[in-house]
């Protein structure tokens, strides 16, 4: 209980701090391979998916909390926002891309081996492999979830995500990017039940400068916790069938 409370307080302090607070007060346990252990079932407490800019404290750079769009891109974002109900790729049950996958109101589970970190998502059974033993991105190919290669910096897992396509959005508010998107993620344990998630987002075709988000993921501490299934397209099919028979 006390740990929990301390974790909450820490999360609150961290969320308010413009510069990520030092997390060295907590040392993560180790896996059998000696890596910081990030394993568990994690989820954001309050999903910022409605609008990243309106999620308090989420965008930590630039300081004004605004996504630094180039003028033409800003016009496009506004258009997207207007058409969000039909144009948001998530409303077609498409893969959310990075970092949106980590920010949804559904849990994810992290697994670690010596060679890779894998992330399983409850949301439409998405899965990511973060390769720790490869140091070059694949060439001439792009993916909805990108190509993820990772390394450890102290207790932080740093994941370099490239080869992303231009089909995904960042949120329901129409925030978007081009296929020049490059995301650097940082995963750091800040307590027994908290995992700091930071993502630096660069896209020279869309933004005037890199911008950065920071949010805490919280561990599911229920005994025997497991991911369930959120099969968006199956639910959509069910709804369509129901409508058709009316």
């Amino acid at each position, binding site marked *: 209980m006390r740990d929990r409370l301390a974790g909450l307080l820490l999360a609150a302090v961290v969320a308010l701090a413009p510069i990520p607070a030092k997390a060295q007060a907590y040392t993560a346990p180790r896996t059998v391979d000696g890596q910081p252990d990030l394993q568990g079932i994690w989820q954001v407490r309050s999903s910022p998916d409605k609008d990243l800019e309106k999620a308090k404290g989420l965008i930590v750079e630039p300081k004004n909390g605004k996504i630094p769009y180039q003028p033409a891109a800003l016009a496009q974002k506004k258009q997207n926002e207007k058409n969000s109900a039909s144009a948001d790729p998530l409303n077609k049950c498409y893969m959310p891309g990075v970092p949106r996958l980590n920010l949804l109101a559904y849990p994810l589970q992290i697994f670690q081996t010596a060679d890779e970190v894998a992330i399983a998502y409850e949301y439409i059974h998405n899965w990511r492999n973060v390769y720790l033993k490869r140091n070059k991105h694949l060439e001439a190919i792009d993916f909805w979830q990108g190509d993820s290669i990772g390394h450890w910096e102290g207790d932080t897992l740093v994941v370099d995500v490239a080869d992303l396509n231009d089909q995904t959005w960042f949120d329901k508010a129409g925030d978007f990017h081009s296929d020049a998107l490059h995301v650097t993620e940082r995963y750091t344990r800040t307590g027994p039940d908290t995992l700091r998630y930071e993502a630096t987002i660069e896209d020279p075709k869309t933004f005037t400068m890199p911008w950065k988000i920071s949010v805490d993921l919280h561990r599911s501490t229920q005994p025997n916790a497991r991911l369930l*299934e959120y099969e968006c397209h199956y639910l959509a099919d069910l709804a369509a069938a129901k409508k058709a028979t009316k």
Partner: protein
Amino acid sequence: MRNGLLNSLVAAAVSAVLIVAASPAFGQEPPAGGPPGRGAAGRGGRGGRGPALPPPGPVPRAADGHPNMSGYWNAGNNGGAVFEVQKHPIARPGFGAGNGAIVDPPDGMIPYQPWAAEKAKDNFEHHLADEPELHCYMSGLPNQMYRQFGFQILQPAGYVAMNWEFMHSYRIIPTDNRPHALPASTKLFQGDSVGHWEDDTLVVDTTNLNDRTWLDSAGNVHTDQMHVVERFTMVNDRTINYEATMEDPKAFTKPWKIAFPLNRNMQPNYEQMEFACIEGNQDTEHYLESAGGKVKGK
């Protein structure tokens, strides 16, 4: 890019071009010692190409002493179970003949109750476009284990996790002796799996399966009362003997069992690619209206 286009190709491979898949080349064992490669059966399939490999080595061990099954694997079923899990000795349009994967009962057939046999027949004759995979639903059990493109096993402490290239389906199997903890009313495509080790065999017990999956592409069925017990026995560094026993008091007259090897993908530095499924999915458009699809009948 693994996108809708490729998916359509996959659909074509799975449906229209089944004749190719059911030809002798598909069903053959790879040459002795030959690796599963990227051959005619598709990426991660069993091409049998590549240099000869040294003979199999001993079972690798994880830190906890259990067999370490980490790596990439392909279902070594030669009976075309993905097309039809039971014996299908007579070729039908789009479905070549094959022996399936059933080892018990000895006739190789699903011991259906009459209604379920009728339902399966109706699926095959009229509803092939309703195949759950064409709509990007996860395959459920045991179908998932003989789906194409291979899968990866990760074995961190306390878990065996499997992920398939095909539709990024996955299974997460805790091995910490936890009980089934979901209420009986919670139904999942992949069910609730719990595992434990019996010597060198991983035994996986799966409940809470829904009734939305088929057993194969031919429309074989089960209900949400199905209970599956699987046994993964690693016998050398590149072979896992796989068995699964299915019980379903609402659909079958008795339990039945399948068996086939899982063969390690020996390709160095192999990685799975992203398989987008619903993104641009046009699978059902390849099917005639008479089979529930969108192509106009002749």
